[in-house]
């Protein structure tokens, strides 16, 4: 007897889902996530994670072209299989102690995985699967609105303790008691958030659909844009006062990454050269700042200590020169080779910084300490209790300038040359673009942004260590550009908020940070290589002309 195709497919998807669920459990993610609750006493993140896996698997098993009954059954089968595999893990784990190999295979995990009653697990899976299949019957717009609602609720629920902290600090917590419980959202709050977000999303998608149908889009009026911009600026200016020191620090971290992301975006997004040694320029900027301004540095010993503002242009220039120096050997090579060479460059800089050879200058593994804080004479000094809040303004200023520069560069002749090189080097050269100049400028501009971030980073922390300039930072920046949308400046900002801001707030999950980054990179490349906010190609002719 030959089994129906949909059935085999559903079984396969269910097995994949089960594999993923087991992996997530053994890696330790499920148990760690279980500590966070989304809705207090009702839903925790660990179970949600498993259910999401089931949901995705079942949703993809119940394909659009199937008939209604087959959809539901396929969802059921896929969910059931996933549940079955989890049961298998629990049963095997009950017999054999796997902890010698898999450190997370603890009895607590098995207890957690059995959802209260082990026999029910496949049924819970099947139920979730059927639910996922039922989503296929909803109109696409409503479905997407609901998914967005769930996603936002999950994020708010996970971060609810942080929100509560901020509200409490501002004396506002009494007004939000209906929404936020000490751990997670309240039941009513979660319903409201889901509904509100879904409704907003639904209405918006209706409007944009209507706009597509309209003959010509209404050009947004200039003053509307300016007003929105000013409002955003006002909010941003008030933000650090509202957030308090800790969250301002997170925001500063995000800001520094935005600054670096904008720089790397020039190299990767505009010019299409994947540079994974970008942290080298951050390191150079930071070290230039440290060497020049620290009283322990060799320059101060020689009797010439600089202040931040004098050292900043030097840090900038050091990064630019290094960018050009890196650029020259990689001019002739493309793609994969270039990536590896940049990686090697990043490693060389780090190895040199650690080595005893340059110890008199870089401080070796101990780094450079006692870097003085940033000061504007007569105005303020970036030290004292509200340091992070003050620093925020400096970073905000740098980010705005950088975003402006990046935007203008993108639309300039040089920007168009970069994009031409990205699309096809040979054609670009044939069109009269000077490849050498264009590529070197990309490296130099990218490095400049990073050099400044490095200088601020050094002056903010007060001490730098070679170990803080590892490859992971480069990967972090590459990931945020790719997730946000290569070449898009707003994408960089979104990417930094999601990939830097969220993990900073969720410190207890930090061991899974890179695991998730890796998975996100793979997923984005497979499903949405253009990123969350894709860069729209520039239109040569305005519509209607």
């Amino acid at each position, binding site marked *: 007897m030959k089994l129906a195709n949909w059935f085999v497919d559903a079984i396969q998807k269910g097995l994949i889902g089960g594999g993923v669920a087991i992996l997530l459990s053994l890696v330790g993610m499920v148990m760690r996530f279980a500590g966070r609750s989304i809705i207090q006493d009702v839903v925790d993140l660990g179970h949600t994670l498993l259910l999401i896996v089931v949901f995705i698997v079942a949703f993809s098993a119940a394909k659009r072209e199937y008939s209604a009954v087959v959809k539901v059954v396929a969802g059921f089968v896929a969910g059931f299989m996933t549940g079955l595999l989890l049961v298998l893990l629990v049963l095997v784990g009950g017999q054999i102690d796997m902890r010698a190999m898999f450190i997370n295979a603890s009895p607590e995990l098995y207890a957690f995985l059995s959802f209260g009653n082990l026999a029910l697990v496949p049924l819970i899976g099947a139920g979730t699967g059927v639910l996922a299949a039922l989503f296929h019957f909803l109109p696409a717009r409503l479905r997407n609105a609901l998914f967005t609602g769930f996603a936002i609720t999950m994020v708010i629920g996970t971060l609810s303790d942080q929100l509560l902290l901020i509200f409490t600090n501002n004396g506002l917590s009494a007004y939000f008691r209906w929404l936020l419980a000490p751990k997670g959202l309240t039941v009513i709050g979660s319903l409201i958030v889901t509904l509100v977000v879904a409704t907003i999303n639904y209405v918006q998608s209706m409007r944009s659909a209507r706009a597509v149908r309209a003959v010509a889009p209404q050009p947004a009026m200039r003053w509307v844009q300016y007003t929105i911009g000013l409002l955003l600026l006002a909010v941003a200016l008030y933000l650090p006062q509202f957030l308090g020191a800790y969250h301002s620090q997170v925001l500063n971290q995000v800001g520094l990454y935005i600054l670096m992301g904008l720089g790397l975006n020039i190299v990767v997004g505009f010019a299409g050269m994947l540079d994974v040694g970008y942290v080298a320029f951050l390191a150079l900027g930071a070290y230039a700042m440290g060497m020049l301004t620290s009283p322990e540095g060799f320059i101060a010993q020689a009797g010439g200590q600089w202040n931040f503002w004098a050292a900043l242009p030097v840090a900038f220039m050091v990064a630019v020169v290094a960018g050009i120096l890196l650029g020259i050997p990689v001019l002739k090579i493309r793609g994969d080779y270039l990536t590896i060479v940049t990686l090697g460059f990043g490693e060389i800089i780090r190895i*040199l910084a650690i080595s005893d050879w340059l110890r008199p200058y870089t401080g070796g593994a101990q780094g450079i300490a006692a870097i003085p804080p940033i000061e504007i004479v007569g105005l303020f000094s970036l030290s004292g209790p509200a340091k992070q809040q003050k620093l925020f303004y400096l970073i905000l200023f740098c980010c705005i300038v950088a975003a402006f520069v990046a935007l203008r560069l993108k639309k300039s002749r040089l920007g168009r040359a970069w994009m031409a090189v990205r699309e096809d080097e040979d054609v670009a050269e044939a069109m009269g673009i000077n490849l050498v100049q264009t590529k070197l400028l990309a490296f130099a501009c990218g490095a400049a942004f990073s050099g400044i971030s490095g200088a601020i980073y050094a002056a903010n922390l007060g001490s730098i260590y070679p170990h803080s300039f590892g490859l992971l930072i480069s*990967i972090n920046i590459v990931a945020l550009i790719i997730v946000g949308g290569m070449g898009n400046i707003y994408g960089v900002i979104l990417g930094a908020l999601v990939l830097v801001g969220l993990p900073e707030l969720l410190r207890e999950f930090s061991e899974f940070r890179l695991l998730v980054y890796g998975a996100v990179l793979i997923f984005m490349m497979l499903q949405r290589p253009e990123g969350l906010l894709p860069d729209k190609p520039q239109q040569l002719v305005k519509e209607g002309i």
Partner: protein
Amino acid sequence: MRRRIDTTTLVMWLIGVLIVSGVAWGTFNTVRANPYSRENWIDFVIFGLAQGCLYALIALGYTLVYGILRMINFAHGEVFMAGAFTGYFVAQPLFDSGFLVAQPVISLILIAIVSMATSILVAYLLERICYRPLRNAPRLVPLITAIGASFFLQYTFAGLYGNGVKTYPTVPSLTGEWQIFGIGILKTQAVVIVASIVLMLVLWLFIQYTKTGKAMRAVSEDKETAALMGINVDATIVRTFIIGAAMAGSAGVLYALLNKQVQFYMGFQPGLKAFTAAVLGGIGNIPGAMLGGVFLGLFESVGPSLFLEGLKIPAPYQLKDAIAFTMLVLILIFRPTGILGERLSKKKA
């Protein structure tokens, strides 16, 4: 006709000449001062050979995959790590039960089989999930995927097995030295060198004379034509990944013999070095990868004491890793096709 020399070429040559003359000056100084005895140098060379053989085994995986797909399998270092790391969980029980001491050869083969099987499984999943759907995507896309996969694998294994260092048990019959032609050579190093040479020989024969090997070569020449000749391209690519992974898995066990310690991060540096070795020999070229690996291993082990010390650099071994990367840059400047690489035409690059 006179070739016009542009500024960048000039600067590149200048950088290259500076580095080369630095190396020459350092070597000259060291040779004149002669701080090491003959035995020291022989030790350096043998150590470098053993290390280089490992690089060569891993480099084969890069070269094989690059030859066929024209992509750098950035996660190949993690394939190596997966094998070595998993092998520990066979080696330790074998040691505890006394079997490793009683039957070292069978035990090592057992460990190698498990290690290779794990590597193969990881590489297979990698190809199936991450690379196959991207066969026709722009070049940057599979590379980014590979970088993502590399980190995903690293931290998955850190989560599964823990992020601490695991120490392989010592094989008692492999402690001490053998005297060959009056030269003392550590037994582990000898085993690593001999095993690597045997493995590489087997691989070379396989590629040259078996049907699968011929299919692999045909696919790497021209995928479309190979498909027209009745070769199953997808299956051949999977086989290529599997063979590369088997080499990496065996390298994992040999690495464990040599260095004892394994952890989730161990694949990264050797992976990068092996890639350098592959480029050094001419990427896509199988004998080139072997040669490049050995060459790089020798350079890394002899280099610091040979020319860095001559330049009066303190603690030159700290800069060992920088040598490999500097070499990579130098090759790309002077001979981007590598030592044996003539095959890398513009079409493929």
